C-alpha cells in the first residue's frame, strides 16, 4: 500500500501528477493494469524511477480531480495486486479445467480415459460402505 512517504506529488506545471508505488509491494504489471483503467479519464504513463514504480497521470478535463483519480488508482492497484496473488495460485488449475472441458479425453483422471462406462472401476455404482464392517475397504462392497 502507498504510505505517507509515497503520497502523490502535487501537480507539476504541465499538469502531471506522479503517484509512487513501492516495488516491494506492487508488481509493475499490477500498476500497469490499474493505470490502464484510467486511460479514459487521464493521460497515463508508468515508469521505473530509481527502482520505484511511478504512475504519471494528467487529467483529460479540468473537471477531473487529480486527488480523486489518485485515490481511485491506489484502490485499483490493490485490487490488481490481489488478482496477481489469485492468478499465481489458480493459473494451472484454470488451464486444467478448460483443457478438460474442451477435450475429448479425461484430463482430470487419465486412468478413466479408455475405460468402458459399464466397467465402473471406481466402484461408484456399488452399494455404500457398511459401518458394521471395519475391514471393508473404500471401494469394496459390504460383507453379506
Amino acid at each position, binding site marked *: 500500500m502507498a504510505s505517507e512517504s509515497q503520497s502523490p506529488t502535487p501537480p507539476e506545471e504541465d499538469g502531471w501528477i506522479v503517484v509512487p508505488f513501492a516495488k516491494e509491494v506492487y508488481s509493475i504489471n499490477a500498476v500497469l493494469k490499474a493505470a*490502464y483503467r484510467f486511460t*479514459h479519464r487521464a493521460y497515463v504513463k508508468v515508469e521505473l524511477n530509481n527502482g520505484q514504480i511511478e504512475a504519471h497521470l494528467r487529467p483529460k478535463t479540468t473537471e477531473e480531480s487529480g486527488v480523486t483519480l489518485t485515490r481511485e488508482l491506489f484502490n485499483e492497484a490493490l485490487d490488481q495486486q490481489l*488478482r496477481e*496473488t489469485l492468478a499465481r495460485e489458480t493459473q494451472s488449475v484454470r488451464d486444467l479445467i478448460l483443457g478438460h472441458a*474442451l477435450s475429448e479425453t479425461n484430463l482430470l*483422471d487419465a486412468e478413466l480415459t479408455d475405460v468402458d462406462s459399464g466397467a465402473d472401476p471406481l466402484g461408484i455404482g456399488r452399494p455404500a460402505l457398511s459401518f458394521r464392517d471395519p475391514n471393508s475397504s473404500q471401494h469394496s462392497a459390504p460383507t453379506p
Partner: protein
Amino acid sequence: MTGLAPSFGGASEFLDPQYELLPFRFMRLDEGRYVATNLAGDYLCLSREQLAAFIEKRLPANDRLLNDLEARQFLRRGYDLAPLELLAAQYRTQQSQRRWFTSLHLFVGTLRCDHSCQYCQVSRAHDAAAGYDMTPETADRAVDLMLEGPSPQLKVEFQGGEPLLNFPIVERIVRRTKAQAEGRFVQFVVATNLALLDDGKLKFFSQHGIKVSTSLDGPRELHNRNRPRPGRDAYEATLRGIQRCREQLGHESVSALLTCTADSLRQPEAIVDEYVAQGFRSIFLRHISPYGFAARSQQRIGYETEQFLEFYRRGLARILWHNQQGYPLRETYASILLNRILTTAPPGYVDLLSPTGLGLNCLAYDYDGDVYASDEGRMLAQMGDDSFRLGNVHQTRWRDLFLESELLTIADETMTEGMPGCADCAFQPYCGSDPVFHHVTQGDRVGHRPSSAFCRRNMEIMRHLIRSLEDDACAARILRQWAL
C-alpha cells in the same frame, strides 16, 4: 438415538482447514461490496475485507463464507476432483452450441421499405425503387450455402427492408430450406412492420409455422413520430397486423421490439404500459445502434449512454411493478443476461459471445448475394465500409467464408478472455466483445474498454441486475423466473 454428543462441534470440525483457490474474477459492485464470479459464471457478493481474507487464506475454517465459496466452486479442499469436474462440465455446457457452428441466418430479400424511420438501422430503398430485390438465383444459392453448414438447428430470419415487399422470395427460401434441410430443426421468423400483411401471407405463415417479429416503439404519438409512412398510420397498421397474426397464428406467434430514441427517453413508463395494453408478455428495451440511417441521424435522435441507462432502469422498474400487480412481462435483454448469470444454459445472443458470434453464430445474406458476418456488418457496408464482408453466395464456398476472410483473425483478437479491460472483469463470463460496434465507434474492433459505450452500458445493466437480485427480494423473485 439421544442426539449428538455434547462434544460435537458442528460439521466444520470435519472440514479440512486448508483449501486451494479455484480460478475466479472479481470487481467492485458498489461502495461496500465486490462481486466475484467463478469460471462458469456463478457469482457471489462479498466485502473487500472478506475477499482479501479469502485470497490470502486468513478466513477461519469454520467461517460460513467458506461454505458458500466452496458450494460455488471458488475453492476446493483436499485435492477433491469434483469441483473441477463440475466447473468443466458447466463450461462445456456453455460452449456446447459452438461446436455446431453457425445457426442464425439472416436473409435480406429486399432493401425496399414503405416506412422511412429516422433511426432505421439499414440503408433502405424507396418501396418502388428497382434493383434492390434478391433474385431467385441468389436466394437459391444463399440457401444452399447455408445448408453446407453443419448446424442441426437453424434459425432463418427475414430482415429488410420490408420482407413483405418481396414475398415471393420469402416463400422460395422457406420452401427450399424445408425441402433440403434433411431432418434439421429449422425455425423461421419474419421481421416486418405488418403494414402489408394480407390473408395470403398469413396463410403461408400458418402453413409453415413462421413466427412474426414486429416493431412497436410505444404509444401512438411516439410510434408514428419514430416510424413515419404515407398516411401517418404506422401505429394503427401495426396493431391491426398484430391482431390478425394472433387470431390466425396464435397469441405467442408475434413478438415486438422497440428502438429507444431521444423522444423515448422521457417516457419509459408509457412505453411499458403500451406493451401491457397490447397484451405482450415481453419487451426489449433496446438502445439505438450506430449503423445505417441511425448514424446519419445521430445528432437528431441520439443520446448518451447515461441517458439510456436511466431510461432502462426506469423501464425495468415499471416492468417489475406490472409483474407485482399480476401481469407477467419480461424484459428481453435482462432475460438474456439473467440466463447467463443464473444458469449454465448455452448463450445465443450474438453480441454477448466470446469468441465473437460474428460469422461463427450468425451470417447475413444481402439482397445482392454478399455475405456478412452479422446484420450490423451488412449495415456498415451500406455506409461504405465492407470490413465485415465475408464473400458472395455466387463466388464463395462455405469453408472460404471463414478461412479465406478476416473472420478467424477477428475472433482470435477479440476474445474477451484475453482482452485488456475484459480479462479481469467479473462480468466476463456474461459478456462479449461486439467487434462491429467497436470498429464503428472507436475505429478498432478490439476497442478501448474504459471509454467503450458497449462496456459502460453492459456493466451498469449487469450491476443493476445483481444488486436487484441481492437487495430486493421482491424483484429477485421475479427476475429469477426470467432466467428459466
